[in-house]
């Protein structure tokens, strides 16, 4: 398969079929926490795409050229989480300086990208052998990080759009907040299951 074909397959798979939020259950805290307003959802999505792309690239390099040659692969979890923490700190400083309004809107969820399991998840998945035993190369690992981030942003925005309308609905008291968010996520996951049938 040529490069563009592979890229297309990867994009469809990361965004629709194996969506991080709806089929891997990764990154649920920001998914439920920052999806109340469209603007903050968009800002959060962009920050996550950036961190996931960078984290995939850097963690892959660290794994391949530092951990594997010295036989330290058992330290990968530790090395990855430190890399991600440093990256998030960097993003936080940039956003605080250049977009203070966005910084305020994201609030506590910005430093929490560190503990967003989607970021560590993609870094670990990138070094895990695929079904046919091969592993990603550097380019595909980075692209996988980017596309998974896009998939995350996609469902985050969809969720924010639905929730904005849901504000106007009269709901039973016990279903308000988290419970209805979960049911909503379930319905979306169900809709995304339709993509499973795609043969690519």
């Amino acid at each position: 398969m040529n490069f563009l074909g592979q890229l297309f397959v990867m994009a469809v798979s990361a965004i629709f079929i194996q969506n991080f939020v709806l089929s891997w259950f990764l990154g649920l805290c920001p998914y439920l926490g920052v999806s109340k307003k469209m603007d903050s959802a968009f800002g959060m999505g962009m920050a996550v795409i950036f961190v996931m792309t960078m984290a995939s690239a850097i963690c892959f390099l660290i794994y391949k050229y530092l951990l594997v040659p010295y036989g330290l692969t058992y330290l990968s979890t530790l090395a990855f989480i430190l890399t991600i923490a440093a990256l998030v700190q960097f993003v936080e400083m940039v956003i605080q300086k250049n977009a203070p309004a966005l910084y305020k809107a994201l609030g506590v969820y910005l430093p929490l990208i560190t503990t967003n399991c989607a970021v560590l998840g993609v870094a670990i998945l990138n070094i895990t052998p695929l079904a046919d035993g091969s592993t990603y190369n550097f380019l595909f690992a980075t692209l996988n990080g980017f596309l998974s981030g896009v998939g995350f942003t996609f469902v985050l925005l969809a969720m924010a759009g639905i929730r904005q309308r849901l504000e106007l609905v009269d709901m039973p008291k016990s279903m308000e907040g988290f419970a209805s968010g979960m049911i909503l996520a379930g319905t979306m996951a169900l809709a995304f299951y339709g993509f499973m049938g795609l043969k690519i």
Partner: protein
Amino acid sequence: MSFIKELTKGIIKENPTFVIVLGMCPTLATSTSVNNAVGMGVAATFVLVCSNILISLIKNITPDKIRIPVYVVVIAAFVSVVDMVMAAFIPDLHKELGLFIPLIVVNCIILGRAEAFANKNNVLNSMADGIGMGLGFTLSLSVMATFREILGNGTWAGMRVMPHSYNPMLIAILAPGAFFTLGLLMATINLLKGRKQ
């Protein structure tokens, strides 16, 4: 006295999953069967207890500004231990839980307890808090898994409980079922809480 109080509060009153609403990802992902749920719960409890003890021990020598990175390193170290031990002794379960073992590092319950409790309390109470919260987490995972496994597979912890004629609702063990189960459980808990008041 306070030891017992710290130990029991995590199980119902301050249940980490249903009341504090932390650590959603593993709750949804590993509650497909009771065996997975208990395995995940025990692994997280071990990490929680160990990290609580160590963080409580070093709380006076940790500079305040870098305490979060210190906690993360401590937690990641214990997670690596659990990861390797499970891979060596219970490889089947390790394979089943897969990605979610290293992801215990980013389980908000563990970092949350380190920051909210172990950082301020003595070793004994921190240990009790860790055990209690861990048990609460395991319990809520098992409750989720009970519903999902019985509905989706007709079994409980591998034992058949539904008659053979029962047609399993496959959706309960797939991703959407996880969201629905948790959402409905949360709504029920809210309803009960509302009644009490």
